[in-house]
């Protein structure tokens, strides 16, 4: 029995391993610092990969025997290495010499991962985060430098923000981490919680979103890829900044030789956000208003997250199989209503969530070229909103007891201690098959279920406004989205095309209260819909380094939890919300030219969109809700230039112009003439851009120490809060022109083992606004220390 068993085991593992040996390694410069973006190719084959940010690579599908690796990359001399492959293994670091001779334009240029992404037939911006990693930046700050992207923050650390991408905003743009939709992670886990150390790539899809990100994005998607290649590391960072801001993170991974992997991460963020603003201070007796500089006094924020994942990698049955648990909580004080005239001194929100996660990936499952990826999680969350103050505050922090609205909170019409209890589950499955070198198909399914009940110990008798009554019975939201895509390469890979179809299913049960006082009853509103979307995209390489792209899609976006169920305080529920949909056309040209040590990338795009039934947030007083109202037309132009000299100096500039006009001919309520037909949609930035320059001051190849300096400038032209056509210019409420500059200096020692960076944001202390009257922080300093061990 025993020998037979061993033999079978050997046979199975032997069979599985055969034909797919792997070879890993690292490419470094002469000082031993990893070089990203180097192409590593098996000579005489099409089998090749690019090195990641640390210079690591892993070649798959190799056969036993001798082979020759070819290393190519900009600024480095091409090098070949002969290897005799016996088993899957890892070779010693390969040191490349910097090129001293000029590279000719026809020479094969090493493609980084970001370059490969840019070559896909989607309108996409791939952000190489390597140069930004040491600079102590948030994900939001990194994204904010992408053309077409605006992030509108309400204040400092932890404040809510609205993300706009080519005129789409909020949930029309979907976020993913390693392909897993972020929608349900809740407010404890947001973009700003992800330390930039962990990120290897950020892809910004504009318009058409590939099927493998199986979601109902309408205007685009952002996929943040974290680094999976490093086997063992420990990354500890701590930063301290203005306004008593502290951020700490520990990110670690341990992989045994047998493939057992443990990921353990912890994040902590804290800030008082007590920055100075210009505010109207009301006299508590006369109500008379005077403008003066005050310090924000109730805007503290704290969040903490712990994550542990355990699993295996590089096993016959899985490239990666991980199960994990995430615990997170966050506390946030509220300082004002939707603008600064309403001062809040006591209200706050608190979130707690615990998630179980599951990640599975297997390439060449049963068949070569067949890859299965399954990600899932289930979450239990609790959101508490407390607004019970009987006082009115002014900007000096002085308070007076309310005389009339004594049952009102500071923001809520009725005092509230609203508590939501949420359960959410999401499963995403992706099966892709590479038919041959030129054709592949993929099918993706995303299923999600959300369940919410709520209670308010103070609100049992509330007849109007934000009542807990609709949540005494469960509100549920179920979505099932399936996508199928087919990709094709033609004309010796000069033409790449993708076609896809998507199916969207929505089922929601929401409750609405009816009647007043003691005659209240709960109405149940059920919504069910099945809709279809489709699209095509193509890119053509006219000649080396120059490509054109075009895409079209008809996409749906299903309403989400916040829009349907509200947030318990500022956002009221709307059980009647419908899906929005849009036709998106994109056209772009992209060129990448290299002359010796000079490299210039140019990207120009045009987009045209026709969103219908748009879900828009309408603010009335200090609260708001989401309504299906506006049909619009977006015409956008973008230009993006990036220059690099010898990996020493880089500079980029981008600009976006995107008027969005109302295309609704009749008034949505009365059915009469809509006098605002073809008017510019208010409260949306129209013209904005960024510029950035980086310089490597010191690059000591002996000690592997580097010193970088970086400058960024951000510009947004003024835009109006209300419809631009109405009212005299001088009296109109606007979000004024913003021009701000930030600078940072970072020093990295021993090839990135120790990093320190000092940054100053808004160096000229400009008065900045993203939202009407919600002033953002002035000049702020921060120091980040980072230790990386692998």
């Amino acid at each position, binding site marked *: 029995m025993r020998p037979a068993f061993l033999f079978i085991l050997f046979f199975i593992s032997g069979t599985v391993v055969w034909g797919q040996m792997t070879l890993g390694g690292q490419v470094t410069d002469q000082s031993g610092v990893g070089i990203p973006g180097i192409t590593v190719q098996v000579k005489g084959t099409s089998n090749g990969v690019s090195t990641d940010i640390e210079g690591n690579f892993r070649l798959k599908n190799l056969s036993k025997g001798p082979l020759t690796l070819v290393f190519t990359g900009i600024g480095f001399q091409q090098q070949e290495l002969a290897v005799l492959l016996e088993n899957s293994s890892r070779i010693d670091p390969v040191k490349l010499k910097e090129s001293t001779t000029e590279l000719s334009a026809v020479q094969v240029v090493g493609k980084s991962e970001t370059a490969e992404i840019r070559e896909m037939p989607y309108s996409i911006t791939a952000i190489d985060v390597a140069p930004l990693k040491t600079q102590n930046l948030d994900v939001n700050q990194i994204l904010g430098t992408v053309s077409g992207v605006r992030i509108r923050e309400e204040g400092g650390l932890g404040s809510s923000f609205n993300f706009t991408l080519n005129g789409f905003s909020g949930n029309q743009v979907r976020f993913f981490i390693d392909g897993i939709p972020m929608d349900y992670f809740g407010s404890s886990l947001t973009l700003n919680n992800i330390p930039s150390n962990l990120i290897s790539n950020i892809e910004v899809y504009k318009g058409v979103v590939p099927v493998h990100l199986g979601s109902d994005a309408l205007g685009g998607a952002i996929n943040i890829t974290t680094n999976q290649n490093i086997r063992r590391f420990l990354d500890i960072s701590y930063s301290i900044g203005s306004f008593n801001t502290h951020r700490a993170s520990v990110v670690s991974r341990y992989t045994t030789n047998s493939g057992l992997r443990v990921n353990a991460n912890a994040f902590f963020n804290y800030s008082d956000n007590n920055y100075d603003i210009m505010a109207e201070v009301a006299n508590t007796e*006369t109500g008379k208003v005077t403008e003066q500089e005050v310090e924000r006094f109730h805007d503290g924020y704290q969040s903490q997250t712990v994550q542990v994942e355990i699993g295996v990698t590089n096993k016959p049955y899985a490239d990666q199989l991980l199960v994990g648990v995430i615990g997170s909580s966050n506390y946030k004080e509220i300082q004002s209503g939707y603008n600064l*005239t309403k001062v809040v001194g006591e209200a706050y929100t608190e979130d707690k969530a615990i998630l179980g996660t599951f990640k599975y990936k297997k390439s060449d499952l049963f068949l070569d070229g067949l890859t299965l990826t399954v990600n899932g999680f289930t979450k239990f969350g609790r959101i508490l909103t407390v607004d019970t103050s009987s006082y009115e505050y002014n900007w000096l922090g002085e308070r007076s007891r309310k005389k009339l609205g004594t049952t*009102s909170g500071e923001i809520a019409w009725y005092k509230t201690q609203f508590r939501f209890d949420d359960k959410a589950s999401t499963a995403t499955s992706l099966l892709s098959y590479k038919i041959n070198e030129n054709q592949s198909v993929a099918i993706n399914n995303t299923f999600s279920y959300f369940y919410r009940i709520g209670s308010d110990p103070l609100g049992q008798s509330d007849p109007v406004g934000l009542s807990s009554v609709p949540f005494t019975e469960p509100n549920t939201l179920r979505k099932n989205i399936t996508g199928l895509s087919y990709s094709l390469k033609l004309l010796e890979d000069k033409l790449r095309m993708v076609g896809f179809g998507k199916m969207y299913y929505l089922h929601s049960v929401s409750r609405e209260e009816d009647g007043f*006082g003691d005659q209240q009853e709960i109405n149940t509103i059920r919504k069910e819909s099945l809709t279809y979307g489709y699209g095509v995209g193509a890119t053509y390489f006219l000649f080396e380094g120059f490509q054109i792209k075009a895409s079209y899609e008809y996409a749906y976006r299903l309403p989400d939890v916040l829009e349907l169920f509200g947030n318990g305080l500022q956002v009221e529920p709307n059980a009647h919300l419908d899906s929005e949909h849009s036709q998106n056309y994109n056209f772009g040209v992209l060129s990448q030219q290299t002359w010796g040590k000079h490299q210039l990338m140019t990207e120009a795009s045009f987009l045209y969109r026709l969103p219908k039934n748009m879900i828009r947030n309408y603010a*009335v007083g200090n609260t708001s809700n989401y309504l299906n109202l506006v049909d619009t037309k977006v015409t956008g132009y973008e230009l993006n230039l990036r220059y690099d000299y010898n990996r020493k100096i880089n500079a980029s500039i981008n*600009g976006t*112009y995107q008027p969005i006009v109302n295309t609704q001919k009749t008034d949505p309520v*009365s059915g009469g*003439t809509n006098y605002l037909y073809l008017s510019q949609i208010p409260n949306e930035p129209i013209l904005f851009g960024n510029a950035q320059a980086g310089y490597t001051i010191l690059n000591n190849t002996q000690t592997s120490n580097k010193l970088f300096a970086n400058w960024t400038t951000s510009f947004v032209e003024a835009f109006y809060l209300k419809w631009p056509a109405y009212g005299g210019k001088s009296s109109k409420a606007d979000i004024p022109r913003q021009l701000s500059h930030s600078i940072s200096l970072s020093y990295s020692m021993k090839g990135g083992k120790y990093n320190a960076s000092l940054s100053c944001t808004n160096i000229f202390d400009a008065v900045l606004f993203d939202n009407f009257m919600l002033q953002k922080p002035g000049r702020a300093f921060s120091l980040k220390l980072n230790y990386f061990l692998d």
Partner: protein
Amino acid sequence: MLLLAIISGLSACTTDDEVDTAGANYVMSLRTQNANDESADYYITVDDLLNGEISAVGQGVELIGWNYNAKFGDTYFAFGYDLNECIGYKLQDGELISQGKFVFERIDVMEPLDNDYFLGIGAPWGGGSYDCNLQVVSIDDIAIDHNAEHPIYESFHYVDSLDQSVQLNAWPTGAYLDNDKLFVSFYPLHGTSWQTPNTDTAYVSVFSYPELDYIKTIKDDRTGPIGYYGGSPVILENEGGDHFFVSTGCKACGFTQVTKSSGILKVNAGETEFDPNYYFDVEGKTGYKVLSGTYVGNGLAVARVISTQLDDQASAVNMWATFSEVTPILNAAVIDLNAETLTIVEDVPLHGGQYKTPYLVENGKVYISVNTGTDAHVYEVDPASATATKGAKLIGNQFQALFATK
């Protein structure tokens, strides 16, 4: 550089030319969108009420959110309902220029007092508080001078369906000063449920001025409460200084019940009691209920009314239906307060209602905002002939205030 050139070129495209504000015979607060939207009100100047279109395109002062408006002296006030701030404007060279602002907790009724002050009454909202805040506001300073908190009427109590004794609020609906006496009309209202269990008596409280001391509350059970939520004009003053009080008896004005017919009471000049010899039972005599009105002269008033039948139909759907400017259920009417007659002005189509219904009286004519549900116009009503002329089209959904500048 190319990019910068493009950006600067594009920004040049986004600037429009300023529209000239020539004539300024009137100041209007134009509500450009539905009141339940993220609405924007504009204080604009208007030269001609009868011809062409009136719009805020390129002109006027933008008011944030939803506003009530009033003119005291030569200052035009905007009372933000969402922002709880009041801004005063003066007309200078045909343009409205801000003179300052103050912050308040609530102002639900705003009425003139004298040359220096106006009255702003904050109502107790949402149950839990029962006092009104009588605020005397300086017109010049644009600041609260002094205030007094008072329940304006000794507590109402009623027993609800859960057998609980519930205290009602007295919600102010109008006010006027007669020498040293301040009269405040109100209606009883359950603070949290907005129920109106007490609708068989009209109430007006009397205070001393400027002390704001409570004197008494006068009552009359020939009709129900005076006025309703939203501050529409329900107290009409004639040439002799007598005051007429409108009881709406209208369910679609936010009443959960109505027990008396709509009618008009009177308090004679210098007196502090209802005139026992005057009662115009409007609904009993004409089949219409009066929501609000303005006095023109010779006993004639122009009013907004609803038929008993439409009130029944509308209130069955929405107890606040008369606040919707796009629900056409109201008529314009001429009321002869002396002859006790009501004449429907047939030239004015059925139209929607408004908060704090504005009327402008000028040269014996009354100008009103009429929204038929799909579009809105100024109408000029001639009370003498009970006829009306359709005037300028509003590029918007109503005017929320209209004042003559001279």
